[in-house]
């Protein structure tokens, strides 16, 4: 099925970039047709490659954020229509996504859409959270990967407070991942604020989740 799945991934990517809802639906119908495949296979062989490619195109400057956002939204819509009750990936990390001290939640929305579409168990922890509340919610939800999005530099610097909260509560098992414009403009900033990883794009969020699933902490 490898070549067939590759062709479907390419078809899906083209449909998503051109915002062709009918073609996205037709691609999903083809996937979920008589030879129905399970959600994980679908995610790994068709959806994730398409979304990864779009995310990478954004990172390299050949796609726009509006396309990345709409791609995630269209895939979510199609999944809801064609595979509404699919369970999350077995054995995958539980992922919490939050916005630190800000109401601008586009990055969180995109990351949630992409990870959900790839079959991960994603918990939306909310927006406008201070470090204490954010870590409260992450621990309540028992997340393994905590993805924190920020928009502004002063908020990015306060990720160090999230790290402090995790340390004070002995939550050393939680991997702290950050994303957002300040981390794109200064690739070393994530280290200085105590994060374990940095994602430049939704494609990176997928890669980080997959690496964690593969045993990388």
């Amino acid at each position, binding site marked *: 099925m490898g070549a067939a799945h590759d062709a479907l991934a390419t078809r899906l990517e083209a449909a998503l970039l051109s915002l062709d809802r009918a073609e996205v639906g037709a691609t999903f119908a083809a996937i979920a047709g008589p030879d129905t495949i399970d959600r994980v296979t679908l995610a790994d062989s068709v959806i994730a490659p398409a979304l990864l490619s779009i995310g990478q195109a954004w990172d390299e*400057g050949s796609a*726009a954020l*509006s396309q990345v956002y*709409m791609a995630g939204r269209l895939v979510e819509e199609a999944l809801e229509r064609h595979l509404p009750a699919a369970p999350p990936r077995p054995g995958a990390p539980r992922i919490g996504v939050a916005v630190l001290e800000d109401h601008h*939640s586009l990055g969180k929305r995109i990351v949630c859409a992409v990870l959900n579409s790839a079959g991960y168990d994603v918990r939306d922890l909310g927006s406008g959270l201070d470090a204490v509340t954010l870590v409260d919610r992450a621990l309540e939800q028992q997340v393994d990967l905590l993805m924190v999005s920020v928009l502004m530099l002063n908020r990015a610097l306060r990720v160090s407070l999230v790290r402090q909260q995790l340390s004070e509560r002995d939550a050393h098992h939680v991997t702290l991942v950050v994303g957002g414009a300040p981390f794109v*403009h*200064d690739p070393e900033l994530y280290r200085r604020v105590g994060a374990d990883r940095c994602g430049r794009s939704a494609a990176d969020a997928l890669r980080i989740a997959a690496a964690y699933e593969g045993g990388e902490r």
Partner: protein
Amino acid sequence: MNSAMTSIERVFTALGHAEPDRVPVFLLVTMHGAKELGLGLREYFSKAEHVVEGQLRLRAKYGHDCLLPFFYGAVEYEAFGGQAVFSDDGPPNAGAPVIRSREDIFALELPDIRRDPRLQMGLEATRRLVEAAAGQVPVVGTVIGPYSLPVMLMGFESYLDLLHDDPLAFERLMVVTSRFCVDWANAQIAAGATAVGCAEPLAAVNLTERGLFMCTGHPVIADTISKIQGAVALSLASGRALGRIDTYVGLGAAALAVSNQESLAELKRQCAGRLPILGNLNGVAMVSWTPEQARQQVRACIQAAAPGGGFVLADTHGEIPFHVADDVLAAIMQAAHEWGRYPIEPCCDV
């Protein structure tokens, strides 16, 4: 022209694609004035005289080539009824959206600039800075562009949904934001501002797909700029421009503020003689620069883009972060004086 110029002569010569005495510098310090006055940011932004005094002290300290009556971007969101969120170490930010439903768009009222206390403070600061500048220094106002203001008013994802799904509501929203942008820009020009910077990050290549932008943003921005009765510098607020330069030239802006994420030399090559550029020091990285790193970054920018004029040295976002150290700001200006004297030979890429 190599004899010493005033800042306004220097800037206008550069914007005319000619070489002034040295590269002009827009050191866009909007918050550092609070440190100079020993005030917290909330208190600093509570009175026009604070901003005026802060700007004058900063220019006396660093000798850069502009004065900024700008308070913070969320002022315009506040004019529409929003509650800005203040912090001790960064610009006040837009809080919860003021547009929460489609109905809110059709009920949206144009703010009355004459009755808005924050906007009036901005105009008061403009008038006082113009008086203090005495025609020697450009006083640069700021507006959020009509195509990008809805991000603050309704949230980014809701706005993207609207852009893709609801042309009628989008059109209605643009009527209001464009009219507000024109009124607010013209009020600043009437108060004496030399020019206005128009922040339109959604016009950037990396934010909106070309077809979407050309159908939605481009006509609105072009129409808005055509109604502003003064020079407009278009800022992409760190967004990318390469691949869309021709469309920006067609918007009628007097200059384009560009990103540090792209080659400054290539931007200059594509804009030369058509659209002066401002940029492209990395404001985020600037926070951790040493003075020597600042000097080297300034030198590289100047060598990439200054030859032939048409270039103003500035940060890439239009607002230098509060955390940037004074000695880094001083080093930027020192390097501009050292490396920015014309004639300048092209050397390296950024």
